[in-house]
């Protein structure tokens, strides 16, 4: 996934089924199939387009690359950033790694879960936020770090978090 995009807001979620899907996946396959090792770039492109990798795209990708569905599925399930269901409007990644823990990351994690009423992997009932863990954002000198819809935020304490989510 492009962590910078991939929110339902700018993805074409409505296209994730039906003939629109086949056309979009076909176009992506056409464009990327000739790369060496094309599967990951194709999965990224599909996810960029839809915000996740729709189940119906798997047989199309498999056929296009002459792979089995199981192989494609196996790859999707291996990588934490590939999603198989739609995310909320905004995806919030909280860094769980050590440098962020050294600056109160665990307090932030607990606060975020409480404030949003969801656990990691969950989406708020209003469809606004999806909460995901991430292991380091390369922002470790200004911890704790949060990535909200592709934008990095530094030194996020619970108060700053509340401002970020507008509550």
């Amino acid at each position: 996934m492009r962590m910078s995009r991939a929110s339902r807001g700018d993805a074409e979620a409505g296209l994730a089924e039906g003939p629109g899907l086949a056309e979009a996946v076909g176009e992506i396959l056409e464009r990327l199939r000739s790369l060496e090792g094309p599967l990951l770039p194709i999965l990224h492109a599909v996810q960029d387009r839809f915000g996740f990798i729709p189940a119906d795209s798997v047989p199309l990708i498999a056929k296009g690359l002459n792979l089995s569905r199981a192989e494609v599925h196996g790859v999707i399930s291996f990588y934490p950033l590939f999603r198989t269901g739609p995310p909320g409007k905004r995806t919030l990644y909280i860094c769980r790694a050590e440098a962020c823990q050294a600056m109160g990351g665990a307090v932030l994690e607990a606060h975020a879960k409480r404030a949003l009423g969801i656990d990691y992997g969950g989406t708020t009932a209003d469809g606004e936020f999806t909460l995901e863990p991430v292991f380091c954002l390369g922002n470790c000198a200004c911890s704790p770090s949060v990535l909200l819809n592709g934008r990095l935020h530094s030194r996020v304490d619970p108060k700053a978090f509340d401002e970020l989510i507008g509550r």
Partner: protein
Amino acid sequence: MSVRVLVPSDSTAKSLGADAVAAAVAEAAPALDVRRTGSRGLYWLEPLVEVETAAGRIGFGPLDVQRARTLFAGGAPSAEHPDCLGLVAELPALKAQARLTMTRAGVVEPLSLAQYEAHGGFLGLRRAQSLTAQEIVAAVTESGLRGRGGAAFPTGVKWRTVLQAEGSQKYIVCNADEGDSGTFADRMVMESDPFLLIEGMRIAGLAVGADRGYIYCRAEYPQAIATLDEAIRLAAAAGHLHGFHLQVREGAGAYICGEETSLLESLEGKRGTVRYRPPLPATAGLFGKPTVVNNVISLATVPVILAQGAEHHRSFGVGRSLGTLTVQLAGNVRRGGLFEVPFGVTLRQVVEDLGGGTASGRPIKAVQAGGPLGAYIPPQHFDTPLDYESFQTIDAMIGHGGLVVFDDRADLGTLARYAFEFCAEESCGKCTPCRVGAVRGVEVVDRIRRGERAVDNRILLKDLCRTMIDGSLCGLGGMAPLPVLSVMEHFAEEL
């Protein structure tokens, strides 16, 4: 000509408000020429705004929008302004460094080829073009450069193997997966000086006879990916790639894909499971072809070796750890950022003198060196020199050069548990000691912490660690026990 003002655009600087500061400066003083550079890595000063003067660049920071507006109302502030930090190049934090690799970061506009060349760019490539492949490999070998990704394998030796390998197609693969907590040096090169990495890969291509290269960059670095894509396009258009085919590929959140064979699997479009060795990637790597896999910093250090000579590189460092280490100071530290220093300075000099101790002002309890698989080092070992061999003597490793500082409130028992939790989460599943061992490790740590048969379970835990170290296929399972053992040894009351 209007005065030039430089505002960093690196992703940490942006996360601290650099974009808004740049806009505020431009609005407060429209006559100024506001440019966006990368970052010098002095992150406690970001957003650090620099103003060009006859004497050199002067700095102001950290700035927020409010301060930027006041400071730049009616024009650029002068060196006499009370908030001025003085000449940036003379800042003690930079003067104390030996910047061999990170010379342009924060100085140039990252995507300006003209500025890249004006600041010494492509000198190494030009030199390499006048040498034979053997001579390039010899220079890199003589420089003493060892891989900066963690394993510290001599780069020249690896290149010689690939050069001598049979094969019409060879590859240069740059490992830009940078998954270790506490590290951001690769990101800085990619965001702040991308042509440097391209130049290094191009030289590697000449050295081993490879005309294709891939940069495998983690998805968590969208700005690095975008910057590299554009830099490659610009370098190719200006004729700097000479038929070398270079592409960026994006990971998808798997830590294990930093391990080189797993990375190659991922590049091939598969699950990122670790390969058995032999064969080594150098003889059968990407798509079974001879492949150089090197870390970003290793490749980014090659141009200066070619440009200034192997001797110059060797003149830094100690023993078998030659050149410089791009230390990344992170976590609970007052001055967090990138410090490029010669190997051999002590941990204390870096953490206390350069880093200024903890951000919280409390005593340091431990420093984790080398990422999530690295040891927690207690203060009694802070006089250890930062070099690969000395770190071995204290059962620690330098890895990619990340140092994460913890103050006295840190719970090392929880952190030890986390090491196993992380390993369980990230294991590729191919070998049993890692896949199962990490899960059992979490359970045993929990039992000890609950006081259940603590003596027996401590023995069991050590035994489990030994099994993982000896029996794992790669460094994930092989090293995840190191932080745990370090806690058991140095912070016994917590585990």
